[in-house]
């Protein structure tokens, strides 16, 4: 059933930009996610194979930080390898990125769910979780997907770290400056399609969205909805 972003208390920081594109929304995690950006899913899926920009802000994400983070995760039955700046896929479809020895970032899958994050948040409290503390990534950061074969070339216009696919393997993480904003870039391919997840300052979401649109123009990149990415992930 079609919904509008303002039907929900929780809203993406770029919902107005998406509305202006004629996006179609559906509920994900108690807010409206653009499942298409005004075109047929097939067309947007093709778009996403060349260069698609997708607002993932509605998806589940969170994190933990503190000197006992690794131990606590282990106690809760979540194993994350020691190497920082890598993302580790989980059986529930979540991706856990280790940002440093004392910090992880947890991203849910494209359905919007993350069983691991739910479980960890339910288990955590000040006493039990001494030495690790939740990072409110869902609100600190906006989250965008950049997909398709030109995605690496597009990032070269925004970022001084070499993110081209031949140099930046799947599941690598770069914490760097993107269009002069601090951000996290995670390469997380969708099936065969090159794909990056970008998290950055939610208060600068409109600015970053504009930068992405501008940088993508030269490659005929365009916004796509969540359904296009889900299609790519299916294969």
């Amino acid at each position, binding site marked *: 059933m079609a919904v509008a972003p303002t039907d929900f208390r929780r*809203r993406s920081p770029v919902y107005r930009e998406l509305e202006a594109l004629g996006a179609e929304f559906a509920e994900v995690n108690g807010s409206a996610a653009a499942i298409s950006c005004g075109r047929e899913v097939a067309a947007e899926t093709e778009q996403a194979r060349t260069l698609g920009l997708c607002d993932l802000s509605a998806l589940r994400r969170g994190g933990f930080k503190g*000197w006992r983070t690794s131990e606590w995760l282990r106690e809760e039955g979540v194993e994350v390898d020691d190497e920082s700046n890598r993302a580790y896929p989980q059986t529930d479809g979540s991706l856990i990125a280790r940002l440093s020895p004392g910090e992880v970032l947890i991203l849910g899958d494209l359905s919007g769910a993350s069983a691991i994050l739910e479980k960890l948040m339910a288990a955590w409290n000040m006493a039990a979780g001494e030495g690790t*503390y939740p990072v409110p990534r869902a609100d600190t950061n906006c989250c965008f997907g950049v997909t398709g074969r030109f995605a690496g070339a597009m990032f*070269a*216009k925004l970022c001084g770290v070499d993110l081209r696919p031949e140099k930046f393997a799947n599941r690598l993480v770069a914490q760097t400056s993107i*269009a*002069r904003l601090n951000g996290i870039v995670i390469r997380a391919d969708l099936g065969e399609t090159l794909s990056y997840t970008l998290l950055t300052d*939610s*208060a600068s979401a409109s600015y970053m969205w504009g930068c992405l649109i501008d940088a993508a123009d030269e490659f005929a990149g365009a916004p796509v909805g969540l359904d296009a990415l889900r299609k790519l992930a299916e294969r």
Partner: protein
Amino acid sequence: MSGAYRLPGPAGLLIDRETPVDFRFEGVRYAAFAGDTVASALAAHGVRTLSRSFKYHRPRGILSMAGHDANTLVTAGYMVNARAEKVVVSAGLEVRAQNYVGSLERDWAALLGRLGRFLPVGFYYKAFYSPKFLWPYWERLIRNLAGLGRVDLETPQGYFDKEYLFHDLIVVGGGPAGLSAALRAAKAGAEVVLVDENPVLGGSLNYARFGAEEGRAAKMREKLVAEVEAQANIRVMTSTFCQGWFIDNWFPLVRGNRLYKLRTKGAVVATGSYEQAIVFRNNDLPGVMFGSAAQRLIKLYGVKPGERAVVATAADDGYGVALDLLEAGVEVACVVDLRADPPETERTRALTHRHVPILVNATIREAVPGPQGKNVSGARIAKITEEGRSTAETDRFNCDLIAMVGGYHPQMSLLTQAGGRARYDPEGAIFRVDDLPESVVAAGSVNGSFALDAVIEEGSVAGWKAAKAIGLEAGRKPIEKADRKAPAPDYPWPIFPHPGGKDFVDFDEDLEVKDVLNAIAEGYEHIELQKRFSTLGMGPSQGRHSHLPAARLNARGRGALLDEAAITTLRWPISQIKIGHLAGRIFEPVRTTAIHHRHIERGAKMMVAGPWLRPEYYGPPATRTENIRKEVLNVRNNVGVIDVSTLGGLEVQGPDAAEFMNRMYTFAYLKQPIGRSRYVMMTDLGGVVADDGVTARFHKDHYYVTATTSGADAVYQTMLWYNAQWRLKVNVINVTASHAALNIAGPKSREVLAKVCGDIDLSKEAYPYMDVREGHIADIPARLLRIGFVGELGYEIHVPSGEGEALWDALFEAGAEFGIMPFGIEAQRLLRLEKGHIIISQDTDGLTTPQEADMTWAIAKKKPFYVGRQSVDIQAAKPLKRKLIGFELANEKEPAPLECHLTVRGEEIVGRVTSIGHSPTLGKTIGLAYVAPDQAEPGQLFEIKIEKGRIVKGRVVKLPFYDPDGARQEL
């Protein structure tokens, strides 16, 4: 017709004869071909004068045909100071000449040339500075005459952007050396980017003549380019200019409207060399050009450079030029060879065979101007008697073209920027660069190699060396067989001063031999001083053709050996760069709160606050004061809401959280009760007030702290820095962007909140002032801080930023019946001023101590440590220098001071006004100011110096101005 001087095909590598293009120059239409530049197209029509010189307004035409000089600066469309030799014609392009008075053909300012002796070197500094009051007049006159292009202020903004590039190796220069270097390095496995400023690869292979037979260069070019193109790990970037070398092999490349920021591990510099002029009288006339310029016209554009030529040369290459001219149908009147005993080569033999007169040990003493002093009409040739001197007796040869080959100067900017040292090699009569870092390798004529076989071999070796330097397994060193020195030019002194002058060393600045010598005679001996005094090398061509003769003249002028010749520092950008490349699309992040669009919808005037946009006030600018007044009164009488999402937010958590807070802030936090908030003030190491905010303790191990809008990042950074040293069990998370925060304030705020809050008892008894709660507002999870910056009953509501807009909407819906209104920063400033609350960095500065700001109440004196404590203690033990006080005007009728007006006592400055405004609540002007400590008692008068030095009096008032007992915030 594309011009009477156009040669038949296939000459013209860069033009497309199938695609005619029309453009206009000085209002006249010209036919050209696609690929033509403005200069080549005009040359094809016999148009020789393209611009006027900077100082004497002498007519100027093609010199290098490579865009290396400033002789052909034109205005092309909106682009001023464009190089006609580089601007490719497009349909309808309007091109205008620059720097003339009247017309290009008859420039009245050219009379200045006759006044040359009254315009000596350094004339700006000497002639016009006394009497001093006349300088502005002279300056205007000089600027009008000397300015180059005129910028059209209506120029539409272009789209310029930037891109990062990453390669193992850059090869700069797509000539024979660069091509072979790129190939060798690529074969060793390097990812190479090959950069060339021209539209096609090949460099000198495209126009120069190696050996006697035509066609050898073209074959070599075809072979090398085909190999390069077949090599998958070479990226070719043509029409791209490498503007400089920066540390760790970082290169700005310019192509079109984009600036590329390239990072590599190493570089091969094969940038080639600049051909040099021969210095003789009138060597700047249109029709006098480099031999390579004539060759470029013929080979690249299919344009015959003249009808009858004199070739003057200091090297064997001049003979190649003469052969090319002959083959293009130009009559060669003679070849003048400066060398006393030039070796016989296949090229000299070929010319002798074609009966071209060859005059050795001779020079052009003077070029003869044609009618109206314009194009060259002949050359006066003289025997060389000794170095730099020739007989006064001359033979005249009529000609409309003088092609000069005066030697070469390496394009070594990248090499010296990379740390190489340029030294003059008197044996080869050329500058060479040594002491290069291992990762930067030079090859080809920039390295002093000119023979084609040697250059190609050297390129290969350079590619191999560079590949090795960046850690690749490069295999065996390529073999070098060719004679590197073979026909290298080595003539030391192609400078022939003429008693009549106009023997130009620097064409950009119209500097003659005597100008350089005079600068030295006046004591500006050091090459860098000589440059600045004479302006030599400071024009658009940046000394490409003047550094070498200037260095030679400098050495001789100082009586030094030529070994000691030196050149000035070669900085970036190496060539012309547009402001757009530097300024275009600079990323400027803007932070907006979750409620941003609601502010806009309510007519907010947004202002920049640190990295954020915030509402200054709501309503039309025309009624600004009234808008703010209404907002203030509505808070005092009803209820208002301000968006304070921009405040910094930090979670301080862990068993040592209380200890950490106690160290970072001046107040006492160990015993702060859970559920209570407390003021925080941070001092820096010097004891200066650095930031403030509020902390709420939600758990014994959890403090939530706010910081000022502009201080948030620095506070976070500072906290992490200290704990990297202290190693306390505490964790700090910056949650600034994750919270939207609204401050709802005013006597009716509780009633509004009560409508949307079900799980917190808001009653005065259950929820007193300074308490904090966690609960839900409009079903949104919220932290509630009952604090009172504006001095009314009020609550700060912190919610997840994703739900901030919904919170705003809910409050306005609930508050409608109570007359709820938003208020902006200006209203908040007035409200807190009425309460005497300070704003850090407005009412404090980089030196303000807690004592001066009257903030010692916020310092816990008993605790062992806080950041800056020892400094605060030291200052506290010293007499106070100034004190922040509240004041009103002694006479309301006098003009009100502004913020930052000085408080004075006689001649002495004692402080400044930090905040001032007309209080809508009190109906009078109130402010905060620093005064001397002995002026700080309520009732005392002090002086404020306002505009135009006028003095008004302020009267000290006890703070706060409004509600001194704080009854209203405790409602």
